[in-house]
């Protein structure tokens, strides 16, 4: 490598704070009053609302999981009866999938997409607010089921008829569950339209598709899958509700209907749903790993292509959930299910390739990203086993499947979610979280999670069926169940350091600065927390790492091709787009006072 000669002062790295001013220069764009929060159409406020609401649902779903694990800790019925147990596991699954995991992805989409592509907001802000409120009301209705006669729905999160039909589940709770999913499904569809429109039409100049952060790509393709899958579910549930209320017979075999039709419709939604949950979180770790490995992402286009392939294949594997019905084309669905391991493997390869030879620092987001990799690979491997019909016939509806789905949908989501929270917390609040508490949080969670769910593989292998409230003390069932329940206690305790950390952090002054991690993508080019409509100023975008190029703009051999030219062009022709500190070699120059934003109003006086 040749070294380019340059004067010492020219070697200086810029920081984003040189451009947007010290912390607190611009006021936060979030509402300040209760009415402000209720009427807001701002994507950042709605993103924060989505995140808080989905974390509340995580707590509710976690509490229900606590009831399940307490009941299963030893043989016999101690805490709840069978009917209540059915309601508890149904609402646990439904809350976790429909009201926690998917909406947290939408929280990321809301908050981050406009910031990462350099837009002032999503394309349809009021539609966005409508989606959020539909989700809140839909979620509340599902929980209302617990106070109806006969309790909440008890047919499992996929509501197979005839159990979910008018005879199998006569209670009002089942109807409320169906209505709730129709509402949240509509909310998801509207958000997906919003995300696709925003990414297609609202990118900043120079932000080509192949310069978008991988998270934006993943959310874009996720939204496409939402458009494909959610309306099918909504349709299936309207048919189911019509069966229950209006006497139609879509799914009643005695009247010529077909329960298998429902299963097809449900899983045509249900399998893409798994990837709708997972892809945003893949995007999160793809943002985190390069920053803390101090390397560019390895194989950017490969990752985009892998996501595309996963999105495409995930819509053609649905019936692998229906192997045991004996009514599906086994070779087709087994082949497509095995194929999906290839792009997933490419992703894991690229993540490891990014870390390889990098200067890794184990900041909290990186710890959780690695935790994500561990659980995701463990869950992916059992997925490949379950994709084989011969093994699936044995393992279907056993605790092996429960272990598998909690690794791929539970572990990956929860670890990547905390990677996201620790990573973007300074951006959202302007404050840092304690690294020491976060490390304690990570290790407790890693131990607790694996203790809870790994032993479920043994339970399933030995033949324990899922969705049962009681079991016989045979084959070591009681031993592994006790271990799993103890793991659940550790997992619950692991949230304590996080809560303490959040409370502690919110009491500190907001001094984190615009770019505390020295990260890459465009959201770090605005102040923390971002002002209303996000950007007062944008750096030139010449690669998928505009903020990296900004820091290194004096180093032509490091920053992306064209960066220096773009800055020179601004300096020569268009001083409106220059930073507060002029682009110059002379570092003693005072900031241009006339263009510094007013601290109270955020208005720029030029």
């Amino acid at each position, binding site marked *: 490598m040749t070294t380019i000669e340059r004067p010492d002062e020219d070697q200086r790295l810029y920081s984003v704070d040189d451009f947007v001013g010290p912390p607190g220069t611009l006021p936060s764009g979030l*509402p300040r009053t209760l009415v402000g929060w*209720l*009427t*807001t*159409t*701002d994507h950042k406020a709605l993103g924060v609302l989505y995140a808080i609401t989905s974390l509340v649902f995580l707590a509710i779903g976690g509490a229900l999981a606590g009831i399940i694990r307490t009941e299963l800790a030893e043989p016999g019925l101690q805490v709840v009866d069978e009917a209540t147990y059915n309601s508890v596991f149904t609402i646990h699954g439904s809350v976790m999938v429909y009201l926690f995991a998917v909406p947290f992805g939408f929280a990321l989409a809301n908050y981050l997409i406009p910031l990462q592509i350099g837009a*002032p*907001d999503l394309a349809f*802000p*009021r*539609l966005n*607010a*409508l989606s*959020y*409120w*539909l989700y*809140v*009301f*839909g979620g509340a*209705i599902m929980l209302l089921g617990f106070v109806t006669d006969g309790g909440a729905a008890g047919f499992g999160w996929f509501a197979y008829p005839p159990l979910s039909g008018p005879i199998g589940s006569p209670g*009002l709770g089942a*109807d*409320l569950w169906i*209505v709730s999913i129709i*509402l949240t499904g*509509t909310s998801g569809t509207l958000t997906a339209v919003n995300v*696709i429109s925003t990414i*297609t039409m*609202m*990118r*900043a*100049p*120079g932000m*080509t*598709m192949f310069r978008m952060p991988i998270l934006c790509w993943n959310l874009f393709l996720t939204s*496409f899958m939402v458009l*494909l899958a959610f309306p099918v579910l909504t349709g299936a549930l309207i048919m189911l*509700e019509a069966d229950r*209320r209006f006497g139609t017979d879509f799914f009643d075999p005695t009247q010529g209907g077909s329960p298998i*039709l429902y299963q*097809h*419709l449900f899983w*045509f939604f249900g399998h893409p749903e798994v990837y709708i949950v997972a892809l945003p979180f893949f995007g999160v770790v793809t943002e985190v790993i390069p920053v803390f490995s101090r390397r560019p992402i390895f194989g950017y286009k490969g990752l985009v292509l892998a996501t*595309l392939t996963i999105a*495409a294949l995930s*819509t*053609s594997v*649905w019936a692998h959930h229906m192997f045991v019905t004996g009514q*599906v*084309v086994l*070779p*087709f669905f087994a082949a497509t299910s095995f194929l999906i391991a290839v792009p997933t493997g490419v992703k894991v390869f690229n993540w490891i390739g990014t870390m390889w030879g990098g200067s890794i620092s184990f900041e909290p987001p990186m710890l959780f990203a690695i935790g994500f990799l561990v659980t995701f690979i463990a869950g992916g491997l059992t997925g490949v086993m379950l994709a084989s019909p011969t093994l699936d016939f044995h393992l279907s509806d056993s605790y092996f499947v429960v272990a598998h789905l909690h690794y791929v949908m539970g572990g990956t989501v929860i670890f990547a979610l905390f990677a996201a929270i620790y990573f973007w917390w300074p951006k959202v609040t302007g404050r840092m979280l304690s690294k020491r508490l976060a490390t304690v949080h990570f290790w407790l969670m890693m131990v607790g999670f694996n203790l809870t769910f790994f032993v479920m593989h043994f339970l399933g292998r030995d033949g324990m069926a899922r969705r049962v409230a009681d079991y016989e003390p045979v084959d070591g069932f009681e031993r592994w169940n006790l271990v799993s329940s103890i793991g659940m206690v550790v997992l619950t305790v692991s949230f304590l350091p996080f809560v303490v950390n959040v409370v502690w952090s919110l009491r500190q002054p907001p001094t984190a600065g615009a770019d505390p991690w020295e990260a890459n993508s465009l959201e770090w080019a605005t102040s923390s927390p971002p002002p209303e*409509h996000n950007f007062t100023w944008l750096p*030139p975008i*010449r690669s998928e790492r505009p903020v990296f190029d900004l820091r290194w703009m004096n180093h032509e051999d490091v920053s992306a091709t064209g960066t220096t030219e*773009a800055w020179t*062009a*601004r300096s020569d022709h268009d001083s*409106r*787009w220059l930073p507060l500190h002029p682009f110059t070699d002379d570092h003693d120059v005072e900031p241009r006072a006339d263009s510094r934003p007013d601290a109270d109003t955020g208005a720029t006086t030029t």
Partner: protein
Amino acid sequence: MKLETILWIGVTAYFTLIGALYWAVGGDPTGTSLLLMATGLGGLVAGWSWDWRRRHGERPEDRVDADASDETGVVGVYPTASLRPLALALGMTATVLGVVLGSWMLIAGVAIIASQLALLVRDTDG
């Protein structure tokens, strides 16, 4: 817009292919019609973005050498805070709940939706 168009054409092509393959190996009408509807979904957006590009050409966000100054002036008008989305969501919730709980709620829900929609379209800035 070129890349977006190619992407959506790819979606259309993929679902045509996989739909045909699935029909050939299984003959299952449910899955085949779902896949063919996905073809339509992809085709719709592909056609729209193709037409958009034909009318308006390439944009600054598609050029690798564009900078912020290439897109100045009024780029969009953003709505102010509004109570309508919340009220509209409440009306939609009441409507679907009305199917379950009784027509009184259905009527209330439809009334809320109608009034809020009327207010929403007039509520351009506040």
